[in-house]
């Protein structure tokens, strides 16, 4: 207990307990309708593909048809009109642009510099070989097809998977490294060997996590325009991190950062995929500077499925040492990432296995743990972020193993979890991997979810139906979700990255509010949720707040939106800036109303003397005077403040329970119902939170039941259209009920925690456990995803 108190005190001393800055009024906590919706509903919203500039060229990529090959020659002279109506650039033409390299601060991680167009060698089907440009997309496609037909390659032996990659005679993706294994490290926490020696039983499972991807409905796209006279580059990109991208583009192209403007216009979904800087985001702007004409590249879906970053794939070997009464004594885990052709920039090929290893303990009391992390290069599209990075795999492997252990011990799976789960009064808690769980409701979430599905009644019905030859199953998946991704959170995840974010709140002379934030929205509804915070901070209606985001020229610097950081960071920066502006307003109003600022309140756009509502000025009057009336205005009259926030880490939590029935003849799994309990601290807008849970769960469902990026043994991608790569449709999705618990974070401004990934972290295990539970009479063990009908039949021993 003394250790937990220490943790709380340390955190508060370090971060301050700045809850004063959040003022809760009429808006925070309300399911306010979204202010941004009308433009989406009328077709007025403009995504990158919808933008057009005079003299714009359309770019189409020539991409490698080979998984592993040397580029022998590219004869551009075959293109009619080359240099006049058609333009082409190869890797050699972009030699001056430095390659992209990850910036993970680990000495023993080997680096794989990725040229923005391949030079000399291609490393996966879809690797960029050339860019062809013409005034119209159809003409550019024609020219790209022609150029593609004349590229000469010398094929090299493909390295299609980790087993091939690690073979002693494997072809090397980067000869200069002398190996395809770019990382291997083991860390022991606590007394692992003793724990296993003492154990009554040891359960283990191999688990192959499938390769799948974010596949947002809007593919990637970049438009770049270079004004040679002003030497000003403007880049519109479907990105989650406009300011960061500006820094990277400026660095890569050697331009002063104040001459680069990045705009994320409407972004049609990101889910983490659009946080990394992709080579196309450097190559297209570079070509625009060379040609002095606007250049637009819009990825098509085929290109997206083979050349945009993939995710999730890793192999996990997990062992748990337990006592006969179900107490976990220790865990051993090996996490090996299949990183693809390049260890991708930003977070490297460790993004999956290292994050999985650190997050493995989850909501459980695990004190003895050995984690071993490895990463290999393979001739496949690189692996990068997708909602629930690493955590999805860790949660799935762990929750599957715990059910396995519970079955082996003859203990109910819910009871097994309860015996090992951290209680709320044990928090804050320092996990063995260095994560400081701030607060939460681990057991409460589990109980609430089980209560919602009437667990005992389900078990009875399951028994009855089994007698009739029908197989229903229930799967439980408990999770913690690391959120508030700032310096502290990334350090606790084992991949330290500095963090920087700001918001500016300004009240104009008419009394209306403009909020400019460094976080960036791509469907999360920030224009509403952050307006709710500003509205409460200033005592106005949300309709009087305009939120600016996504454009580096009118928003303060910051890292954008990823890893469930924006509610915490965006919320705190807006709340703090609004509090400052409120003080400025009250100073002026105090002079106008001849009252002390402390005695004033702002409500519904009026500043009045507390207790005497008839003594008031409208906010419009005060704002006008604050700008123009030299008698009352402040010494710095502008009603504006910019505030910074780099949050302490915090952890959301919850529990997903899924119910299914398996058809024993066909292997088809019917999902009946999903219940999700979500605890993300103080909720800003419950309608948005609920919908985030829906979306994340269905993405997890896709990964668990349908989605699989398959490569042949020769390294050819086989899932290259939406006919082969199956994302969930309406009829794949059962009703989802979301139950909310609010345990505020003791550390962050307002007690806000991030959210949005929990569903994707937890749903796959809930579904897999439900299927395994249904098939328990067959002794089925799920060792890979997705759970397709033929895999189910195999699990039942019906096919070989």
């Amino acid at each position: 207990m003394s250790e937990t108190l220490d943790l709380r005190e340390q955190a508060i001393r370090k971060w301050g307990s700045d809850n004063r800055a959040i003022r809760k009024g009429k808006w925070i906590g309300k399911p306010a309708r979204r202010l941004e919706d009308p433009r989406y509903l009328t077709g007025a919203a403009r995504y990158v593909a919808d933008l057009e500039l005079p003299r714009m060229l359309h770019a189409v990529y020539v991409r490698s048809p080979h998984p592993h090959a040397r580029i022998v020659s590219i004869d551009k002279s075959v293109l009619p009109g080359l240099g006049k109506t058609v333009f082409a650039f190869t890797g050699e033409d972009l030699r001056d642009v430095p390659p992209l390299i990850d910036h993970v601060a680990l000495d023993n991680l080997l680096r794989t510099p990725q040229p923005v167009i391949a030079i000399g060698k291609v490393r996966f089907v879809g690797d960029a070989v050339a860019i062809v440009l013409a005034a119209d997309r159809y003409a550019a496609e024609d020219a790209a097809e022609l150029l593609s037909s004349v590229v000469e390659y010398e094929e090299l032996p493909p390295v299609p998977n980790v087993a091939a990659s690690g073979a002693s005679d494997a072809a090397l993706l980067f000869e200069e490294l002398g190996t395809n294994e770019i990382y291997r490290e083991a860390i022991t926490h606590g007394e692992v060997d003793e724990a296993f020696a003492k154990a009554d039983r040891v359960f283990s499972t191999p688990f192959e996590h499938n390769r799948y991807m974010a596949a947002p409905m809007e593919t990637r796209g970049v438009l770049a325009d270079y004004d040679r006279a002003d030497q000003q580059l403007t880049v519109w990109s479907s990105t989650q991190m406009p300011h960061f991208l500006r820094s990277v583009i400026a660095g890569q192209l050697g331009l002063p950062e104040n001459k680069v403007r990045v705009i994320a216009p409407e972004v049609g979904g990101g889910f983490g995929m659009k946080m990394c800087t992709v080579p196309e985001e450097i190559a297209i702007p570079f070509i625009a500077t060379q040609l002095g004409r606007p250049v637009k590249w819009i990825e098509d879906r085929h290109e997206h499925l083979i050349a945009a970053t993939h995710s999730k794939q890793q192999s996990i070997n997990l062992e748990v040492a337990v006592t006969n009464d179900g107490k976990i004594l220790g865990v051993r885990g090996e996490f090996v990432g299949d990183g693809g052709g390049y260890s991708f920039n930003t977070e490297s090929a460790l993004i999956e296995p290292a994050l999985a290893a650190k997050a493995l303990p989850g909501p459980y009391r695990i004190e003895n743990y050995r984690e071993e992390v490895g990463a290999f290069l393979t001739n496949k599209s690189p692996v990068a972020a997708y909602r629930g990075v690493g955590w999805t795999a860790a949660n799935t492997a762990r929750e599957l193993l715990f059910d396995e252990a519970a079955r082996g011990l003859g203990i109910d799976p819910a009871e097994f979890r309860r015996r090992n789960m951290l209680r709320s009064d044990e928090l804050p808690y320092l996990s063995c991997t260095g994560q400081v769980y701030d607060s939460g409701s681990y057991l409460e979430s589990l109980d609430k979810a089980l209560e919602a599905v009437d667990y005992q009644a389900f078990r009875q019905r399951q028994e009855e139906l089994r007698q009739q030859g029908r197989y229903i199953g229930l799967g439980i998946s408990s999770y913690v979700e690391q959120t508030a991704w700032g310096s502290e959170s990334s350090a606790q995840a084992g991949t330290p990255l500095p963090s920087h974010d700001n918001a500016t709140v300004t009240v104009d002379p008419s009394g209306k509010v403009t909020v400019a934030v460094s976080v960036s929205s791509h469907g999360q509804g920030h224009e509403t949720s952050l307006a709710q915070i500003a509205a409460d901070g200033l005592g106005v209606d949300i309709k009087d707040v305009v939120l600016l985001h996504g454009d580096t020229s009118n928003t303060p610097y910051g890292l954008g939106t990823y890893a469930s950081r924006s509610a915490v960071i965006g919320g705190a920066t807006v709340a703090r800036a609004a509090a400052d502006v409120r003080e400025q307003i009250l100073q002026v109003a105090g002079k106008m109303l001849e009252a002390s600022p402390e005695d004033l309140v702002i409500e519904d756009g009026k500043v009045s003397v507390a207790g005497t509502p008839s003594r008031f000025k409208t906010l419009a009057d005060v704002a006008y005077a604050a700008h123009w009336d030299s008698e009352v205005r402040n010494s710095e009259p502008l009603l504006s403040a910019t505030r910074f926030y780099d949050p302490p880490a915090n952890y959301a939590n919850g529990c997903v329970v899924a119910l299914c029935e398996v058809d024993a003849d066909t292997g088809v799994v019917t999902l009946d119902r999903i219940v999700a309990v979500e605890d993300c601290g103080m909720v800003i807008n419950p309608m948005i939170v609920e919908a985030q849970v829906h979306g994340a769960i269905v993405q997890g469902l896709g990964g668990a039941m349908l989605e699989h990026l398959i490569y042949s043994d020769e390294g050819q991608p086989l899932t290259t259209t939406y006919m082969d790569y199956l994302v969930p449709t309406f009829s794949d999705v059962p009703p989802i009920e979301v139950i909310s618990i609010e345990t505020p974070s003791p550390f962050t401004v307002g007690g806000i925690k991030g959210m949005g990934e929990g569903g994707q972290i937890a749903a796959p295990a809930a579904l897999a456990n439900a299927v395994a539970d249904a098939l328990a009479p067959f002794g089925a063990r799920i060792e890979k995803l997705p759970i397709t009908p033929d895999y189910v039949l195999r699990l039942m021993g019906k096919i070989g």
Partner: protein
Amino acid sequence: MAMSSKQIVELNVNGIPHQLLVEPRKTLADVLRDDLGLTGTKLGCEHGVCGACTVLVDGRAIRACLMFAVQAQGPEITTVEGLASDGELDHIQKAFAENHGLQCGYCTPGMLMTAHAFLAENPEPTREQICEGMNGNLCRCTGYQNIIKSTAAAAKAAK
């Protein structure tokens, strides 16, 4: 890579007749977006699976990425831009706004057009019928829950 020569195409879009010079190989979606500037119609796959490009052709939901503009001469074409009148959202658009039926908005135009055609045929749909009827439209953000709710609410509102 034969360059096809352009020809005159007459399209009737949102009640307005247009005469355009386009290549015969150009899809209806591309002509709506590039030649008419009606970028509300979205492209999510360009191979007929995602439904983002759905428009109404004489009231029927059609994938504009699978149809050539030259094939669309004659009928009345409605795009998402043609739904609201005088800035007033129609009942389906309103139902989506009231039930949080969209997140990033990229699938939304296609969803709205499909919902129009679907509800015209099924004015009182069950949940199962909505899932079946809208199954050809993909959404990556919402998990469909609130789109189902919005569509059901729109059906109620129409009564």
